[in-house]
């Protein structure tokens, strides 16, 4: 059952605001790396059965 008629997604940038030692590029590309890993794992699982 839907709980809302409309949603918007956002990236949480709060850690970058609170921790000056976090590298901005590394933080952002980390999301992309995890996305890539997710796609890779799911695809490999289907191809290797």
């Amino acid at each position, binding site marked *: 059952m839907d709980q809302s008629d409309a949603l*918007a997604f956002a990236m949480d940038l709060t850690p970058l*605001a609170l921790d000056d030692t976090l590298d*901005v590029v590394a933080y952002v590309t980390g999301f992309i790396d995890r996305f890539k890993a997710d796609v890779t794992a799911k695809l490999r699982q289907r191809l290797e059965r």
Partner: protein
Amino acid sequence: MQLRNSSADIFIPDGKAPEEALLRISHLGVGAHQDDLEFMAFHGIQACYHSESEWFGGVTCTNGAGSSRTGSYERFSDAEMMAVRRQEQRQAAIVGRYAAMVQLDYASKIVKDPADAHLKEDLIDILSAAQPRVVYTHNPADKHETHVAVVAGVIQAIRELPKQQRPQAVYGCEVWRDLDWLPDAEKVVHDVCGHENLAAALNGFVRFADRRGEALRPRGDRPPPGQCDLFRKSRRGSERRAGLRHGPHAAGPG
């Protein structure tokens, strides 16, 4: 507060003094272009709309000079288009009951120049004056270079603030690249329904402005506006969304 660009504009819809108006801001949106805030920061706009204690403030960084000229604006000069877009953004601030609307009026090339510190310094002053609890800006994976320049400036400005003055939540929002690819556990979900009349009013403004921006921006990336379809219609069941993160500092009622 003295902004660095002599043509910058601080508009206070209810006529309060700028210092008082900025200080009440709890939710601040910082966008590149005149129509970005109503699209990406509607979560904050609607949260503050009926609140006695929460106020939305807007910052638009560029001057609108690059807007395309079609229809009745075909013969408008850059200066005339900038005046039109500035007035449109003021009107959105009235409709959305913003605490303040700051238009920094920089050329895009200045915003995108990493050697030019004017934007960052203005943002430091605005953030210091307002000390918002929540900040909405562009997401760093956006495809528009000026959007990326703005979020970079926002992060740099926040990092110049004393820790106790920094916002509790900073969100990078969707404009020119969706974020549905984010891993579910890391995806912040903003519920943007519940104020259909406000959405429709601001939607009309965005739709109007958007048509003129067609030549400036990539086509086909932004969903066609319509009532409540500024935003993604929910198609996910509650079970699936249990794995998503709702904005932790949400924004209050609405």
